[in-house]
């Protein structure tokens, strides 16, 4: 977990430095395109990490003498 976070943050730092670099006007177009490609990859990687969960809502079912399981949570019962 810690390692992943570090990677994520490193990626994010790199992304921010790319944006900073691109905003400074003296970047050649060729380099800007390369940076864009790299940044695009970083963004999609970071997004993937952030969105690896899928908004699944479940309810824990406790059983005697057995590991707990879960079932989809019925939100319709909530007013």
């Amino acid at each position, binding site marked *: 977990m810690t390692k992943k976070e570090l990677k994520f943050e490193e990626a*994010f730092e790199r992304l921010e430095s790319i944006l900073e670099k691109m*905003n400074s006007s003296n970047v050649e177009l060729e380099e800007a395109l390369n940076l864009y490609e790299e940044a695009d990859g970083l963004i999609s990687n970071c997004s993937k990490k952030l*969105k690896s969960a899928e908004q699944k809502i479940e309810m824990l079912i406790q059983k005697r003498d057995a590991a707990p399981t879960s079932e989809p*949570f019925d939100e319709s019962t909530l007013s």
Partner: protein
Amino acid sequence: MEQTQTKLAPANPDEGALSVSDLTLQIKGLLRSRFSPVTVRGEISNLKRQASGHMYFSLKDANSQISCALFKGSALKLNMIPKEGDEVIAIGSVDVYGPRGQYQLIVSSMRAAGLGALLVKLQKLKEKLKSLGYFDSSHKKPLPPFPKKIAVITSPTGAVIRDIIHVLKRRTKAFDLLVCPVSVQGDACPEQVAQMIETVNAHNLADVIIVARGGGSIEDLYGFNSEEVASAIFKSKIPIISAVGHETDTTIADCVADVRAPTPSAAAEIVLGETIKYEEKLTQASKALNSHISYRLSEVRSRLLSFLSHPLIASKDLILSEYIQKKDALLHKLDLQISQSLTQKKHLLTVSKERLGALQPKNQIFTLKARLARAAYSLKKRPEYISDTFSRRLNLAKRNLAGALESSLFGLKEKEKALSRTQEHLSKLMHKLATEKNERLKTLLENLTAVDPRTLMKKGYALVFSQKTGSIILSKEALESEGCAKLKMHDGETLIQVTDQPTKAKEP
């Protein structure tokens, strides 16, 4: 009062009487100044709720009762719902209701009684836990920045879980939620909550736990002030956010939890705070990146377009015109050279044809004949020329020798003989030479005679001369055009007339 009596007594005894309203007003003022505010404990009875939201009831104990009014504004602020028979502590002020001549308590706030003992117990527990280090910030675990799975320990029904789900859904999609049902009040609450925390930990069911409950009285929140729950929270390996009660009610659970959220909704905001923040940052970064690159690209595109619209590129003829013209000029030159060369070759061909014509045997014969005639003519003159030359040279030599002889005769007698011998020899040589020359001359003459046209003529050849010009006629055409000519034969000349038969006319 005394003053009033003494003042009014001497006059009309009636005059000292107060109106009921005056008295009531005075009583009202007196009670208010004395019993406002006042805290009173009693049991609720005769509870009446008005449609307006106001509540009327009596507070009573074993011996007494007092009418109470709880107006809507205050009723809404209560942390409890008053019920018949509830032992409560009410705070308010004593007032008089004039129309009925009744005094009553206007309740401004009210809470369940028995709190004192509870609070004392709570305070003691707090101190104990504090001494155990349960509240120390050094024990607080940081929340995972991007929790995938969130366990919510709360009642599976009701506003709390609904609010949490609502907030999470509204903010992001990046979460999985596990609802861990427990009862959040009553005697079962502490054990269930504590056990649930342990279960989630034991099976590592989540990255973060939210322990939540809506607001309530201190009794309602009892479970979250229990040592069991505090201990379970403290021992949890998984970071816990507590969101119990309203912001003003701080429970022990709130103190032990790693993070305290003022409300369940706030807990939902906190738990995904980093995720949301980074999602927003990523969206912003993506936007910035795209707008930047599209700006750069549009810049380059417009530069390219301006290049393309440059006259030199827009019309390539401008660049090429020079070369096109050069090419045309070269082509023209080439055409010219080819036609010139062709003309030359044609000319050469014509000349060659002409030459070829001249080389025809018929023509050659004429040429040779003409040359022969010239040769014959010069040969005829040759012998005279040669003898003249020799005799001239002979005479010259003779004179030279005679001179030399004469000059030598005086001093050189001994050379006389030699000289005479030489002379003799010379004369012999001379004679011999002359003889030889004469012989050759004779032969030449004979040869010449053989080729002399006159000799030829004797053999039947004839020369045709123009009667008008006297020059030799070399061709049949010339002869035909002359009409008549002079024919020279070995024995003389005669005139000839060209008749209709040209072939016969040419024959000698």
